[in-house]
């Protein structure tokens, strides 16, 4: 009897998950340091969702419910890994898959940007990271973020603002500054040149890798 009810549970869970599968997977990767970490996070969240599927009251609110589970698992994993201060260097493209595309240089540029901001996000406390990702990438309204994190709207706004401020300072240390509403420009730094090397050989996106850690605090 128990196995039959479990079978019904996972059927129900998968049916509800199907429409939001890709969005939820992508969110997990955005919260995590890498695609592989994100996939692990998603899998763990899915298992927890299976355990808690009986608590889902309205199937219409499955997306919010599952996202709340995902965020909860994300925080649990962060607490588990609190001693980790290094970033994963794993490829964002996914395990064992080479990027396919006509313009390899363009794909590589996007990948490097994604990697850079992932590193920046990884330096934020878990709650700020969630708030910033949900707001900036997932396009969630502040009210929804407040509901998912079970905080007030003002706290959610404050959390987003602090997260964005930290991202801004991180990028400034990298040499990236905002200029009006235009594209990102990087201040040129005097660089040591190898003999015989000219500027055309310098990659456009190079950024300092070793930076002092940003001050972190839960917000």
């Amino acid at each position, binding site marked *: 009897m128990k196995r039959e009810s479990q079978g019904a549970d996972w059927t129900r869970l998968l049916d509800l998950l199907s429409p939001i599968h890709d969005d939820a997977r992508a969110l997990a990767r955005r919260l995590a340091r890498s695609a592989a970490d994100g996939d692990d996070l998603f899998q763990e969240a899915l298992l927890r969702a299976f355990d808690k599927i009986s608590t889902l009251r309205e199937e219409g609110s499955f997306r919010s419910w599952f996202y709340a589970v995902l965020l909860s698992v994300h925080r649990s994993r962060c607490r588990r890994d609190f001693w980790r201060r290094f970033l994963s260097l794993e490829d964002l493209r996914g395990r064992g898959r080479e990027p396919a595309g006509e313009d390899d240089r363009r794909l590589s540029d996007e990948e490097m940007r994604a990697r850079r901001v992932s590193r*920046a996000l990884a330096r934020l406390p878990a709650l700020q990271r969630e708030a910033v990702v949900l707001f900036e990438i997932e396009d969630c309204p502040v009210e929804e973020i407040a509901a998912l994190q079970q905080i007030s709207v003002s706290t959610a706004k404050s959390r987003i603002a602090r997260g964005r401020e930290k991202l801004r300072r991180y990028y400034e240390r990298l040499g990236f500054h905002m200029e009006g509403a*235009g594209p990102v420009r990087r201040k040129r730094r005097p660089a040591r040149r190898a003999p015989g090397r000219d500027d055309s050989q310098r990659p456009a996106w190079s950024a300092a890798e070793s930076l002092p850690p940003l001050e972190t605090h839960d917000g």
Partner: protein
Amino acid sequence: MDERVGNHREDTRRTGPVRKEAYSVDLEALRSASRRGLPAFSETSRSLIESIENRRKRGAWMGLMRGIIERPRLATVLVGGALAAVMLFVPISYERTVGHEVAFTLSGMSPGAEAVSEIAKEMKSAIGADRVGVRMAVAAGGTSGAEHTLTARVPDGSHGRVERLAASYAAVLAKRGAGATFSVSPVRDLVRSNVYLAAANSIINIRVGDRSADEIADDIRWQLESAGVVGAEVDVSTDEGCARICVRASAEGNPELPEIQCETEGEADQKCLRLELRRTPEMTDADLIADIERQLAEQGLSGTVTLDGDGCPKVELDE
């Protein structure tokens, strides 16, 4: 290079002018990159079902150990060994009945009478007490009617045995004209032992062999009291190698009753029929009999069930 310059998403959430932060373009890149190479939904379904099956096979305990030790066999050995080590070697504290306090109240004797000290000495040997203390209370207005309470500590865990001794000594005193009432109460102490013994403390093991009914009953009472069961009544009768054991304990004061295990000796075909009756106030005799018949059926037996005057069942098994 960046197609999104000047083509930013219309943001209906913001009311002020849009500032293009340095990280915003990178966030857009993360948005695209994180959707590339996503596992298919079918793969997600398959891995979820696999995870659930694996977890079910491992069991709840192994689920806890998951991620700690990678090798399941080693984990089983380590966990089992750790549990055994804890059970055998780690001392824990638990309460156990270590004796009884017997209080005799003598009335109508003169205060400080020599007879009281004589009775105290006699009582010590009659009931096997360690020591006897005497307390006297004198009624206001006179020396007559003083009440002497003799309290003795008996290092015997069997309530029944101590009570019988106290009753027989009270009868002796009554014959001499000294009115005496008595009470027996268990003395429990914190005992440090290992987990194994503590676990055994909550299991009543009834060994039926060639022991007499009184021996079996005393043993059961000792075990019940050691397990903290108060006010239990034990009736044992033996008849041609068959022992009928009835243990009755009220749920009041006994929130948890221990498990009773039966062990037989002698002939290989001897069986221990065990009936556990939990009678609630609303149960009738017929309900109780029906419950007994159900338990018989579960043990592959059938018979005629009746209740005696004390509410103890009598079962005559069918051949």
